[in-house]
């Protein structure tokens, strides 16, 4: 965006100020008044804690001995950015895992939504419910269930693989889904697929908002199913895809629960599951380096903002808004 366009973008606000009527002022005040509880909540529960965490990041602060807290300037920031190799490694692990799980998760949710949106599927409402149901199970329970399902000795996935393929999948030399560094991200991705219900529903809502006349016109023109999918369906739901993408990217950066439930954040196997948030938690609450933990949290916040801005920035190249004049 050029400077001129930015100035132009700001100009209407200036005009708005001069043109505002007393009635609008009153309405604005009432609006603010009704927003007050949220503003108070935001200030008390988000803004002040954020400021506090920034102050913590400038301290050497062990919460078990708070009387020994000491101001150390930006030492924690220097350590995180330049000296602690685990910060970069845990971030790379997070990106690597996201690169596997995020596209698979989104594609699977979209795949289910497209299937359920088909007129040819009988009992689609039943399927919709069934596919949504696993996401109603608490994630901790889901992870523990999958831990059993993927057990190398007794898990039914290995038993099925061995029975139908003859591959030695069961036993200590079999497929060790959660202990093999090559398989562990795939296993964690499988946990995630159980929770695609909400994404599937949102995709479904997006699909149902695509005007049917577009499909009818395409059918008359002789477009195949894949052509309709590529030329109509996907472009029309790009706003929904963008929304899902942003949510999932932020969710991936904050990935924590599964590795923590399964191995208490030890990073097993070979540190592969010591994702950034796991490392943040360990530093803050297990190693009791609350000041350093606060620094790690701020770094992740900054990375999250940058990625979100980038995603929004790229949106103009691939997201199609039907109401937009393009």
């Amino acid at each position, binding site marked *: 965006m050029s400077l001129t366009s930015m100035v132009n973008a700001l100009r209407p606000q200036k005009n708005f100020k001069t043109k505002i009527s007393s009635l609008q002022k009153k309405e604005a005040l009432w609006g603010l008044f009704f927003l007050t509880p949220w503003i108070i909540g935001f200030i008390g529960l988000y803004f002040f804690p954020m400021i506090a965490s920034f102050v913590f990041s400038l301290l050497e602060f062990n919460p078990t001995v708070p009387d020994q807290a000491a101001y150390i300037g930006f030492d924690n920031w220097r350590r995180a950015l330049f000296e602690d190799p685990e910060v970069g490694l845990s971030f790379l692990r997070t990106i690597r895992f996201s690169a596997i799980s995020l596209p698979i998760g989104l594609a699977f949710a979209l795949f289910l939504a497209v299937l359920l949106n088909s007129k040819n599927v009988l009992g689609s409402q039943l399927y919709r419910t069934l596919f949504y149901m696993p996401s109603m199970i608490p994630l901790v329970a889901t992870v523990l269930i999958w831990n059993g399902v993927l057990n*190398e*000795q007794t898990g039914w996935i290995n038993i099925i693989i061995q029975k139908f393929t003859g591959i030695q999948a069961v036993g200590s030399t079999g497929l060790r889904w959660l202990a093999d560094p090559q398989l562990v991200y795939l296993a964690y991705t499988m946990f995630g697929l159980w929770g695609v219900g909400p994404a599937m529903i949102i995709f479904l809502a997006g699909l149902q908002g695509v005007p049917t006349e577009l499909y009818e016109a395409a059918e008359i023109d002789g477009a195949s199913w894949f052509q309709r999918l590529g030329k109509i369906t996907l472009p029309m739901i790009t706003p929904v895809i963008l929304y899902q993408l942003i949510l999932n990217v932020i969710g991936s950066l904050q990935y924590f629960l599964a590795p923590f439930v399964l191995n208490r954040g030890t990073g097993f196997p070979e540190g592969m599951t010591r994702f950034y948030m796991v490392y943040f938690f360990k530093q803050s*609450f297990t190693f*009791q*380096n609350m000041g350093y933990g606060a620094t790690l949290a701020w770094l992740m916040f900054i990375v999250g903002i940058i990625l979100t801005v980038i995603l929004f920035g790229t949106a103009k190249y691939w997201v199609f808004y039907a109401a937009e004049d393009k």
Partner: protein
Amino acid sequence: MRNKRIQMLFALLVVALLIAACSPAKPAATTAVQATDEVVEVPTDAAPAEKVQVRWFVGLGAGSDEGTFAPQKAFVEEYNASQNEIELMLEIVDNDVAYDTLSTQIAAGNAPDIVGPIGVRGRDSFKGAWLDLAPLIAENNYDLSDYDPALVKFYLIQEQGQLGIPFGIFPSFILYNQDLFEEAGLNLPPAKYGDKYVMPDGSEVEWNMDTLRDVGMMLTFDSNGKDAKTAGFDSTKITQFGFMNQFTDPRGIGTFFGSGSLVADDGKTAQIPDAWNAAWKWTYDGYWKDWFIPNGAYGGADFLQGPGGPFSSGNLAMIHIHTWYVAPWALGEVKFDWNLAATPSYNGTVTSKMHADTFCIPKGSKDPKSAFKVLTYMLSKEHATSLLSIYGGMPARLSLQGDYFATYTETNFPDKDDINWDVAVAGMAFADNPNHESWMPSFQETTDKYNEFWNKWSNTAGLDIDAELEQLRAALQTIFDAALA
């Protein structure tokens, strides 16, 4: 006009709701008294004096195994019934999460009043968080003459004070499954330090790590009935193992070969002691070459599961363990005969690692005086034995040591009269110094790091262990540098 009034009314309602939401809740006690008023006429300002609540956190050491829950609860009930001033509240947290739980509680200003039993590792994991008991000991004229002065001094930590009063000692030894030795036609391991081991061919050999490996391999079998020393042994189908260092971490495994520390004497340089280097390589070979120690892949196998971990499954012939394991929760239900034997030597020296437990009061305790009152009850001559028999420790009180094991056996294993407790007592002469659980810079982070390496070694065959050890040393140095900067 009417709209304006409605708006005002609505605004007032919102303000009232906000004020109500922000105002402090009514004290529960008032409600309780009002409720009692209906039955008994008790004036609200004359409510009966409430007992002081003292929270006792269990989980950093012994006491978080299910079998110990009921007797600990009974102890608490007995204490609560014995007086009217204090209500002791028991909080048992699984050892796996106890460290995180306690640090979160302390950080949130919700510290318990008593923590224990707690060993050196637990104590040093929370360096600076414990109360110096010296003023309370002086104030209460607490008599320490019944303890070995060296043991009392063990808890006197520089710049921190007297962090505990001795409670229990837990020597270590080899615990073996007698039935598996008999089935394999092998002689039992030495019952006394200095005794030789008699091999199947009748030759007498020193009871050292080489012998332990050989015997362990002869006790490791595959599903075809072949032992690990026999040609054709199938390492993918093992059904019985010979040995493991159970319920310990890499520092404990290293100490099996000799005392040492990951921190050099200067307090800031990371090192791998030679004995630990040898112990870790021996164990790694035991996992992946000699096959007599269950590796990570076998760790979760069904045939090694039992209430007291792999040994109680009946498919593991020997473990190195402490007295706290010789307890009903671990061995009460096993279907095989077992006994205690000497710890083997390494390069002619025996090192039998020691656990010494106590109870600590966190600095964050809301009522340290009441906590100390409970503590003195727990450590008293009359009641320490009940707790020790739950945790399986030798009493630190000299006056209780006399017939302790006889009483313990009678209480916990009435049908077993041949437990070789002598070897446990004799093992105290070979206690590790420095202790395998002693302080390291950034204690938890360092622990986390070496455990990460250990998980890799126990789950991955074919590693260059020398290179791995160097990587570990470098990683520890990075942690130490950051902690001591």
